């Protein structure tokens, strides 16, 4: 996790310049977060790195609770068919080519520490927050879709049509690109809440727990006492496309 510092720096420098240009005397790194989530008192910092752990052995084939919950939370609904509809999270079924073993898992933005989408984005709309969440700033995304070409997980969707009935917590817009935000609205709300027991999980994790499968954890990878960090320390977790060394914030157990 140490290798994410340099990227943070570039991000900060970039944000610093744009804020300064806009004549805003706001600490670097805060500007875009403020735009997207006006009302929060504190800024996201690199004291946290938010992540998820998914135990595929508990994830049930055929269960779609996480996907349904995400769509509901973020106001994603089908319009012109599966080819162009947005999908922030999807269920994937894997069958081993040699053994025939079948398993199922949810796949979404992996919130890489070194995200290729951020590297390639010409305007800096694709960005990684200090706390590791990868987002798209819908105000400066030009819809070039280069980030979609670059993402190794196909985690992003392009908005192909005019949207209606959006959720206030998840602003979206035709002609821009979007992906899982780890329910950043919830993460930011948690930050204002000192009582940890009142913290809420992203919608998908919440739904998975509610369904009784309990295949997903959400938490702070940098907090050694967090449930997710403890579990990772005990049983480990695998990155998808680990060969690319992107240091993903989402990890998996049990892919065999």
């Amino acid at each position, binding site marked *: 996790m140490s290798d994410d510092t340099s990227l943070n720096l*570039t991000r900060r420098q*970039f944000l610093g310049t*744009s804020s300064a240009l806009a004549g805003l005397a706001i600490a670097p790194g805060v500007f875009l977060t403020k735009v997207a989530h006006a009302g929060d008192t504190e800024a996201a910092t690199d004291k946290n790195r938010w992540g998820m752990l998914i135990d595929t052995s508990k994830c049930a084939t055929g269960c779609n609770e996480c996907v349904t919950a995400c769509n509901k939370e973020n106001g994603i609904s089908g*319009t*012109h068919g*599966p*080819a*162009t*509809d*947005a*999908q922030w999270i*999807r*269920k*994937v*079924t*894997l*069958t*081993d*080519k*040699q053994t025939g073993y079948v398993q199922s898992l949810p*796949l979404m933005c992996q919130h890489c520490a070194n995200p*290729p989408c*951020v*590297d*390639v*984005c*010409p*305007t*800096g709309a694709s960005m990684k927050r200090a706390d590791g969440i990868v987002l798209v700033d819908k105000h*400066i*995304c*030009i*819809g*070039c*879709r*280069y980030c*979609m*070409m*670059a*993402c*190794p*997980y*196909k985690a*992003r*969707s*392009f*908005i*192909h*049509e*005019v949207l209606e009935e959006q959720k206030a917590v998840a602003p979206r817009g*035709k*002609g*821009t*690109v979007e992906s899982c935000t780890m329910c950043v609205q919830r993460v930011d709300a948690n930050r204002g809440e000192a009582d940890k027991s009142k913290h809420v999980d992203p919608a998908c994790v919440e739904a998975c727990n509610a369904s009784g499968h309990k295949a997903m954890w959400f938490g702070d990878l940098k907090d050694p006492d967090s449930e997710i960090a403890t579990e990772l320390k005990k049983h480990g977790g695998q990155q*998808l*496309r680990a060969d*690319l060394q992107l240091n993903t914030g989402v990890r998996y157990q049990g*892919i065999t």
Partner: protein
Amino acid sequence: MQKPRYLELEGRSAGYYLLLVILGCFIAAGLAAFIYMEHEGHWVTRMNNQIVWGTPHVFAVFLIVAASGALNIASISSVFGRAIYKPLAPLSALLAMALLAGGLAILVLDLGRPERVVIAMTKYNFKSIFAWNMILYNGFFAIVLVYLWMMMERRFNKYSKVAGFFAFIWRLTLTTGTGSIFGFLVAREAYDAAILAPMFIVMSFAYGLAIFNIIVVAAYGWTQRDLGPAMLMKLRRLLGIFIAAALYFVVVYHLTNLYITQRHGIESFILLGTGEDIYMKVFWIGQILVGGVIPLLLVYAPRLQCRASLVLASVLVILGGLSQMYVTIIGGQAYPLEIFPGKTVTSSFSDGIINAYSPSLPEVMLGLAGVAIAFFLVVFAIKVLRILPQSLADRDVDPHYIAEKQTA
């Protein structure tokens, strides 16, 4: 050999205006397609969340790559000092700018938020090859414009060599940048290869020259100006070399991929096909046969040394170039991402399957409009500016021709 004399086209014939009107219609149709796509959203095209860059990108990248190649004639004359090409250097510079303008117009009009193009010009993420390209494209216009000016303005002629040199370096960088848009995509099997950049450069030579040849032959034929066999022979030989070099790079690219076990999937997808997709056919028939082998025969076959064969070879090279872009851009995206090696994958988001795509009418219209913009600019500019040499007859262009006559 005398100093070339440049003369505007008269451009008052019905044919000239008809040509402008036809090109104008293509541009108007493209704009209509753009408004439609922009108003409805991209779902009205056949691009989707899997094939995010469609037919407009095929045309756009082709034109941008060809733009760099179109500057070749100017480079060969200024940088490498080949006198015979000198009269055509201004046309080469003009065509380069026009092609780039056409390509960029498509790219911008296909953006999800084209009205934000200003953001792309003001906010730069310097790690992005795209952002770099933005600078390279703008710089190309500026440098080639200065170069053209130096060539056309007698007082500044002496600087044209320096300007030409800069333009030469710049355009090599530009095509490296364009190739790297794909070359730096680590996630995709078809891309992620350093060879894509030099391969794009060599292909640009062939594509740019092919378009250049057609314009030269058409302009001199229609205006009844002299175009001697010496110049035609040079253009023909040059085209032959570039086609052969491009083929060589394609072979090396695929051989390298074939050596890497991990890439066998994508290679067999492109080279052998699945039986259902067209990429294998577009590759073998479009890119290799139509765009490579046949034009090579046309260029070198001793019995076919006529103007028509040069034009036909050039047209085929262009078709081959579009095929190559189709295979590279769309074929590369159609092949599924390999996220889970050793697994068969299914999902609601087209994981593990070859992604379906076929061009839609608005996409093709937008692409053709880019081509029309480029030609329109050239046709218009050669009427108002002194770009075209009055004659390209052997006695006017070929230094050896004069030498022979004088010694005789």
